[in-house]
């Protein structure tokens, strides 16, 4: 890796400051936390998908030596403030609000729904206690698929909703849908399914909650993407003022969208800790994580495409059904994002979009890395299907349809400007990197020998954070705040609400601030994970590169100006004549004048200056995203399918990507590769499987299969020359792109491999048995 450039950190693969502790086992994850008198929680969970709870008897559990208490759903409602899901209350879900309780009270609604909590001296004893809790259930017919959920005869999961619709059906139209379809040469109809799969971070959800009755303060050590969002939920549910709740987070073992806001279990743990007067820890085990933490992506699409004989994709009309599981949450918001993103970087002239969200007896639909990703899957699948029918090459049809980069930029039919989008360049670059004609020759030779290779491409854009909009800040979640301070030890400290869980912010933000301010990388410290100390923020949505990188850059610039104003007094010079380089402040042209930044800081903290000198070396900065922008690219996969066993392997994978200016190339590449690995996993291995009776069938790693080092090839990454939009901040997010575009890339390649068999693929999950089924039927499966 590159050594530290004396002049510039940004753009270099600076070694991470996180790693010394990570590599020596000195990281501090939630399960590493030990507090005096700490107890442990475990949950009794429903073995049934849908049932009335007739009684819950915790007396035998409570009597077990080592068990401190056991609480039912009713107990927890009585000791907390009843209300809707605090996360949904905060971010405002669309649609009606179902009843919400921390644990199940009168009904269980999915296998794994928590019914009671047992608090004991150890997790071992808590689990022993759980086995002694007796719950009487009255089985109800389960609603295990969206189609049944939308049938008015299906038993409603929530009495107060009356039906199983989480979000009412809505339809929008953009452009002239009717006449686009009326005048098109060809109309195609497809039904496309995306299967249920899930985040699966290596560390599950968990927290340690500790209530100080004397101060009336609840402290929660959490694994979360935002300490502030968690705090809001905890305060709301426990009936505490926000500033009586402190949420702390250290190292977090991945999340991918799962750990946002305090979950029902974490709220129950916090309430229980207040009751028992001792700290309580709960960290979910793998079986809880797979069964109950939440799942994603189960969506189905009826797609109608209006196409010209030459392969112009003129219009799409899409009807979507999303299976939001049992306690509707962020799933209800996904269709709106999909609608906005469906046109992608293409010249689509008309879009009709309707969606319905169904409530079923499954774990809740949660945000999973690129929650709207199915829009790319649908669009990129449809392009390949059309291309095949018309005899067009997959790269050719995309080049034909991609919007040219114009000034002013083309507008997506759903409204956003495609400013700075390099999709065309990414397609051309992939075509250069992968010699398609040579591959087609190799493919033909292999087929003659009974081996089946295939190649697939897919193109995407993501709003990371998205282009500047007239209404205000780029992207969701508004402006980004940061406090920057030059501490009395001369450290440039950045206080941010970002909560890294693998994104390497401790390193990347320090690179930006070090460059802008003029100190060595080691003289910058990033402070995260304490609601008492950091401003509001959330890590997610692929926005931190722009929003937090931007506020770090501008904030460091503002702090530097303030420091130079102060230093001007010390050095009896004018602030405009002062420079900071390599940790020293000096007068331009006079190197002998240099004073260490740390000395300047020490002097400022000494309190010897009067009111006329501002010695408070601190700024509160905000950033609205500047010109923002899109990230995106084109990916290409070459696969081989063993047609006797259905086993598919990805032989080669190439990504041409544009995420703006790179802060740390190694970090960017790591994000892309991790996302691609998840996409490969989704297609070949991962499925959150429910039986017809609602039983969950992939509750261990023997059934929920994660991709391994033998499943993910070397991923070749080309960074495209990006179009700068902003004078200073051209970093764009890259966290979600790999996972958004890899599934269609791989599925397109598999379909290409199987084209001699006439296979057409309308789904995302292709385990070996399914591949053989598709070959033998060469008609769309059930």
């Amino acid at each position, binding site marked *: 890796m590159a050594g530290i450039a004396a002049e510039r950190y940004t753009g270099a693969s600076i070694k991470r400051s996180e790693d010394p502790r990570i590599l020596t086992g000195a990281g501090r994850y939630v399960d590493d936390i030990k507090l005096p008198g700490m107890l442990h929680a475990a949950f009794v969970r429903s073995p049934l998908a849908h049932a009335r709870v007739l009684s819950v008897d915790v007396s035998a559990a409570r009597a077990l030596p080592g068990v401190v208490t056991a609480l039912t759903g009713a107990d927890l409602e009585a000791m907390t403030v009843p209300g809707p899901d605090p996360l949904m209350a905060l971010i405002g879900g669309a649609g009606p609000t179902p009843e919400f309780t921390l644990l199940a009270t009168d009904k269980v609604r999915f296998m794994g729904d928590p019914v009671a909590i047992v608090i004991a001296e150890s*997790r*071992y004893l808590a*689990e*022993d206690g759980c*086995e002694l809790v007796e719950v009487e259930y009255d089985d109800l017919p389960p609603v295990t698929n969206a189609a049944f959920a939308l049938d008015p005869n299906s038993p409603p999961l929530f009495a107060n909703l009356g039906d199983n619709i989480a979000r009412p059906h809505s339809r929008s139209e953009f452009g002239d849908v009717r006449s686009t379809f009326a005048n098109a040469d060809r109309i195609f109809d497809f039904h496309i399914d995306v299967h249920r799969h899930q985040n699966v971070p290596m560390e599950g959800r968990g927290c340690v909650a500790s209530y100080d009755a004397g101060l009336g303060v609840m402290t929660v050590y959490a694994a979360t993407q935002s300490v502030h969002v968690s705090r809001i939920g905890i305060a709301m549910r426990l009936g505490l003022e926000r500033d009586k709740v402190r949420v702390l987070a250290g190292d977090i073992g991945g999340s991918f969208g799962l750990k946002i806001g305090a979950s029902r279990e974490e709220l129950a743990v916090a309430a229980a800790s207040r009751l028992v007067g001792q700290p309580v820890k709960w960290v979910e*085990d*793998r*079986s809880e994580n797979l069964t109950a933490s939440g799942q994603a992506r189960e969506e189905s699409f009826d797609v109608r495409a209006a196409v010209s004989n030459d392969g112009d994709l003129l219009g799409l009309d899409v009807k979507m059904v999303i299976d939001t599981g049992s306690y509707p949450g962020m799933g209800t918001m996904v269709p709106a994002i999909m609608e906005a993103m469906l046109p992608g970087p293409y010249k689509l002239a008309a879009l009709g979009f309707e969606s319905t969200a169904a409530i079923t007896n499954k774990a809740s639909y949660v945000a999973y890395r690129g929650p709207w990703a199915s829009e790319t899957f649908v669009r990129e699948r449809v392009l390949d299907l059309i291309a095949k029918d018309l005899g067009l090459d997959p790269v050719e049809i995309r080049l034909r349809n991609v919007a040219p980069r114009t000034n002013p930029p083309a507008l997506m039919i759903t409204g956003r400007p495609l400013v700075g989008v390099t999709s065309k360049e990414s397609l051309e670059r992939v075509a250069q990197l992968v010699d398609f004609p040579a591959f087609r020759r190799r493919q033909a030779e292999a087929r003659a020998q009974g081996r089946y290779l295939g190649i697939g491409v897919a193109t995407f854009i993501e709003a990371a954070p998205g282009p500047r909009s007239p209404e205000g800040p780029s992207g969701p979640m508004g402006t980004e705040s940061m406090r920057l301070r030059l501490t009395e030890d001369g450290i440039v400290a950045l206080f941010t609400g970002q909560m890294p869980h693998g994104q390497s912010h401790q390193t990347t933000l320090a690179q930006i601030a070090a460059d802008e301010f003029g100190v060595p990388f080691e003289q910058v410290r990033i402070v995260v994970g304490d609601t008492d100390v950091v401003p509001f923020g959330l890590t997610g949505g692929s926005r931190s590169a722009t929003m937090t990188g931007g506020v770090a850059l501008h904030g460091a610039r503002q702090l530097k100006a303030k420091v130079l104003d102060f230093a001007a007094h010390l050095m009896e010079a004018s602030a405009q004549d002062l420079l900071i380089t390599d940790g020293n402040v000096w007068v331009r042209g006079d190197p002998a004048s240099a004073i260490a930044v740390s000395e300047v800081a020490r002097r400022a903290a000494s309190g010897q200056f009067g009111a006329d000198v501002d010695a408070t070396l601190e700024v509160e900065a905000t950033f609205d995203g500047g010109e923002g922008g899109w990230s995106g690219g084109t990916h290409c996969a070459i696969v081989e399918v063993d047609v*006797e*066993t*259905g*086993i598919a392997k990805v032989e080669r994978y190439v990504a041409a990507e544009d995420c703006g200016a790179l802060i740390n190339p190694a970090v960017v590449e790591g994000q892309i590769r991790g996302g691609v690995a998840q996409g490969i996993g989704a297609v070949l*291995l991962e*499925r959150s*499987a429910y039986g017809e009776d609602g039983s969950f*069938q*992939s509750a*261990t790693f*023997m*059934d929920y*299969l994660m*991709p*391994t080092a*033998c*499943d993910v090839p070397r991923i070749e990454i080309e960074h495209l020359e990006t179009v700068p939009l902003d004078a200073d901040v051209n970093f764009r997010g890259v966290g979600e792109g790999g996972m958004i575009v890899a599934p269609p890339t791989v599925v397109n390649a598999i379909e290409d491999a199987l084209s001699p068999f006439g296979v057409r693929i309308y789904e995302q999950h292709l*385990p*070996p*048995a399914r591949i*053989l*089924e598709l070959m033998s039927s060469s008609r769309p499966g059930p």
Partner: protein
Amino acid sequence: MKLPPVEYEAPTTVAEAIDLLAEHLDEASVLAGGQSLIPLLALRLARPAVLIDINGIDELSGVSATDGWVAIGAMTREYVAEKSETVADTVPLLAAALPLIGHEAIRSRGTIGGSLAHADPAAELPAVARALDAEFVVRGPSGMRVIPAAQWFEGYLTTSRRPDELLLEVRFPAARRGTGISFAEVARRHGDFAIVGLAASLVLSGGVISDARLAFAGISDVPVRAAAAEDLLVGERPSTELFDEAARRATGDVDPPADLHGSSDYRKTVAAAMVRRGLRAAADNAARGSD
């Protein structure tokens, strides 16, 4: 997923272990490598009252070759068998299967006897034992028994070991001159249990198959010998047509289980492909050996 309360015994001799087994019978589980048993305990699917940990019985480990057989002590770690030159030289089918068992860390602790006593029909060693007609030496209060593989595997995770008996060693016949072997499996990922696995062994004399063994992993609740296919092969010369017909006979009346990883039909299709490929590989292996 914490283990439930359980009593623990750690005998240091075979006699002690047998006394404990006789005392506790079905209430006891023998803890060898733990790579199969401990997950079952963690998931609270197994609830023995007593764990009898036999890791301290030194006499149960070791690989020795005598008289046309290789005897492997029940507590011999899988990685030890994997590194054993004796095993590589005399039981090549076993040597070929061992590296496919899970991952290195599993083989650090997993044992030959433990895997065979656990008898997961999708595991590698049961198919090898069945293919080679290995022999299982057990001892109980009433003395020693030698059980041939055909009688060892009774059902899903069930063997003919009585609750008061301890598996002492497993004996594998040494491969004869002219033997060619193949062990392969179709699994979702490297190191996973087989969806379908095949242990194949052919003996070629003068280009003619004089002995054929085919045993499947994963198509039934026990490892299964493809007797009809074996009968077809003996006396014939290797050919694609022969192997195709053997594949048909091997899978004609099997009724494999269905699960998340594959339907019954899928396993049947894959089993046939594995027979074709396995026989080709074994025949090539035999031909190379005789050069």
